[in-house]
């Protein structure tokens, strides 16, 4: 296997494959930086070119675009508080406050290092997991997938700053909003009010831009301070960021593990793994009160998880022909066009291609980080422009992104709706994470619940070992969350009483 890995690495670094790798990295960074455009857009455009190449070059081009887009998205989240990708929304929560404190270099270094460690972890797991991938995925049936969704929401529902019931209530509201669109069961439209554009549900990109980015722009407008401090010491900050990430290696490993497991499940992805990892990082932190104000752990966990999930995504795609996301569906299309059949042959006949893909996950991440590091100083200067220039610039960027997400004014309308809800929740101090996660997971929860009943029946599903284990995890999370908050409250009451 190690010989095959070296051979795959050599294939990637040989000309002209390395040229396609570089092209993929540049394209991935560009679409990653631009909100509203993602790797799916770029891969679709480059797919006709990729399928004309030799198998390794074609797949390297696609995988490099897909991997590197995440890194571009991290940069805009930290510097501009605008998520380039949906999977970098959590980066705004702690990365952007650091940038405002003049520590943009530190935030980016932490992100990049965690990204690299996460993707390496994912690649190693992909390399090692080949023999166990098949039974694991086959064991996760609809009942287990439904419970995974509930566990994810339960984890994130506890991110409430001392009000767990509010977190779960907000999550329920997210589930409610997810009902808009075509019913996954009957195919009939629900709550669409005659708007055809809502048949596929509320467009997530437009809504999330309003929900997360507009409140940041609003806060910047009210404060009158620029997005980042212009006086930064890139070299020292980068060094500190790398050291911090390495110091938290246990958190990196744990969140990378979360990323890989979530990546295995079709439909879940970076937008879910980041929140679950953020929640995990906050739970195990000694200083959870710093989260949302520039906590390093709040950056490390999601960043590692989001790139580690790439390894998880590739497992079902390569070995089952089951794409875990739209990007993976396009990769699958390219594989079939290039006569690379997914399945058992990926570890026999096409082992060279498998190893090239594993190698390119890590190499493209390194290349992306180098390119971004070289250009980060210019971007920081751009982000430190006075508010009077930056607010209109950001609003224009967000509007264009919201429009282009659906190519219609519906995107702009939903941007406004998302903004109103986001700003209101920000003012009231309500947690936004459980809402958006439940909104993303709502259709999946409905689908898995319905299919569970149709394919297994309630009684058979309820006694499956996987379901029982996940139920115990979910109940424990709820129990410890409520108990923990009561403990804090009692401690606070005791302190107040003694002060009196």
């Amino acid at each position: 296997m190690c010989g095959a890995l070296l051979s795959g690495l050599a294939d990637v670094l040989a000309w002209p494959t390395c040229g396609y790798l570089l092209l993929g990295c540049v394209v991935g960074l560009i679409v990653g930086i631009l909100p509203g455009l993602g790797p799916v857009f770029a891969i679709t455009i480059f797919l006709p070119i990729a399928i004309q190449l030799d198998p390794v070059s074609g797949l390297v081009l696609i995988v490099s675009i897909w991997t590197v887009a995440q890194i571009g998205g991290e940069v805009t989240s930290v510097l501009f508080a605008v998520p380039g990708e949906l999977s970098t929304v959590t980066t705004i929560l702690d990365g952007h406050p650091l940038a405002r404190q003049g520590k943009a270099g530190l935030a980016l270094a932490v992100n990049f290092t965690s990204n690299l460690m996460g993707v390496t972890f994912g690649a190693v797991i992909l390399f090692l997991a080949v023999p166990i991938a098949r039974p694991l995925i086959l064991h996760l049936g609809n009942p287990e997938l439904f419970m995974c969704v509930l566990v994810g929401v339960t984890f994130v529902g506890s991110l409430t700053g001392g009000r767990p019931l509010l977190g779960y209530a907000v999550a329920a509201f997210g589930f409610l909003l997810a009902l808009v669109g075509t019913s996954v069961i009957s195919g009939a439209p629900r709550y669409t009010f005659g708007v055809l554009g809502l048949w596929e549900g509320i467009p997530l990109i437009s809504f999330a831009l309003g929900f997360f980015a507009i409140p940041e722009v609003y806060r910047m407008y009210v404060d009158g301070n620029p997005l980042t401090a212009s006086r930064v010491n890139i070299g020292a900050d980068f060094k500190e960021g790398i050291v911090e990430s390495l110091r938290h290696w246990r958190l990196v490993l744990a969140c990378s593990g979360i990323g890989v497991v979530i990546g295995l499940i079709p439909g879940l992805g970076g937008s879910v793994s980041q929140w679950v990892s953020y929640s995990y990082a906050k739970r195990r932190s000694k200083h959870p009160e710093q989260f949302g104000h520039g906590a390093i752990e709040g950056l490390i966990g999601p960043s590692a998880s989001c790139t580690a999930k790439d390894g998880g995504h590739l497992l079902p795609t390569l070995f089952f022909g089951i794409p875990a996301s739209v990007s993976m569906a396009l990769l699958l299309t390219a594989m079939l066009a290039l006569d690379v059949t997914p399945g058992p042959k990926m570890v026999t006949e096409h082992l060279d291609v498998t190893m090239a893909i594993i190698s390119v996950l890590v190499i493209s991440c390194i290349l992306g980080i180098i390119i971004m590091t070289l250009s980060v100083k210019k971007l920081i200067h751009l982000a430190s422009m006075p508010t009077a220039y930056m607010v209109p610039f950001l609003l224009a960027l967000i509007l264009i992104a919201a429009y282009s997400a659906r190519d219609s004014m519906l995107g702009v309308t939903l941007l406004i709706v998302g903004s109103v809800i986001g700003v209101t929740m920000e003012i009231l101090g309500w947690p936004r994470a459980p809402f958006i996660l439940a909104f993303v997971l709502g259709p999946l929860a409905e689908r898995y619940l319905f299919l569970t009943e149709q394919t297994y029946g309630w009684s058979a599903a309820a006694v499956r070992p996987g379901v029982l284990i996940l139920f115990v995890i979910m109940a424990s999370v709820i129990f410890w969350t409520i108990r923990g908050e009561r403990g804090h409250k009692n401690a606070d009451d005791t302190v107040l009483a003694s002060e009196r």
Partner: protein
Amino acid sequence: VQEFYVNRRQYKALSLILPLVFLVAGCGGDDPLTNKDIKADYYKGKTITWIVSGSAGGGTDVLTRAYAPFLSKYLEGHPKVQFKYLTGGGGIEAGNYIYNVAKKDGLTLATLGSENLFSQILGEDGVKYQFQKLTFLGNFLARDQMLFVRGDFGVDNFDELMDASEPPKIGARTASHSTALLPLILQGSFPDKKLFDMVYGYDGGEDVDLDVERGALDGRSNSVGSVESTHQDWIDDKFLVPLVYEGQERHPDFPDVPTVGEVVPPEHQDLIALLRAPDLTTRPPVAPPGLPSDLSDMLRKAFEDMSNDPDFEKTVEDLGYPFQWITPDQEADAVTSVLSDKDLEEDYKGLVGDEG
């Protein structure tokens, strides 16, 4: 910097004149194109907007993007092609746009789906097009659905299925999705026996495959080309057993498997006509209705030239789709025959209604 001032009088004058200018400009409108306007190099320097009814990265999008460079190659003037996604209503939004909004100037095309036809038959909310009146340009995709069940379900052919004690669980996206059509027609042909236990709600074919592999489902209807390109081992190892093929002739790779026409009783043969329209309208490229005849001829000629290009055929097949040239007349005939048969419409509504 020289500043530009507008005084109060000028401002008032402008505020009166500008709305008038816009009003007059708005009232003008374009004259409809006629054959006199269509020169051989009509497309030179122009850009075609191609409406995609599926989401970015989906099968419809990938195919449309594969078609575009070849269309540009075979149209004189070699126009540029840009894409616009109108995915609302499972393609209804794209159908409405190409039928009602797009100019009849040959600069807007759309790739729809056979679901557009079914949505019209079912009279779904929001349908504001008449599929049969669209300008068909020809199609390149053959539909080759086969009904498969797992080998361990215990039946090896359709006769044994008729005698099975329990119906197999068959997965599909929705009752009105094209992959549900073959089992629905078979069920409708044998109303006294529950042939299938249909399970709807899947997100895509891969999810159905996964549940078939897990054993949560007993089978599915799927394209033979798709099964052979992704799971040939399932056929070789008899993990999947083919039961019925929906084509008019037996599939060459499965000469022992009967066609739907062979198994459906004579009194229900009319239901098979429902399959003919989607057979010929799988992701069809279309233009708005009422195009000047010279323009529609020009586009149809380009599509026909594409069909004769071996590189184009290879591109389509490389993407995993069986290639077959279907002429615009064949498309129009199939669609018209289904839509003009009110009994057939009612039959289809009944089949889907019973399930949905």
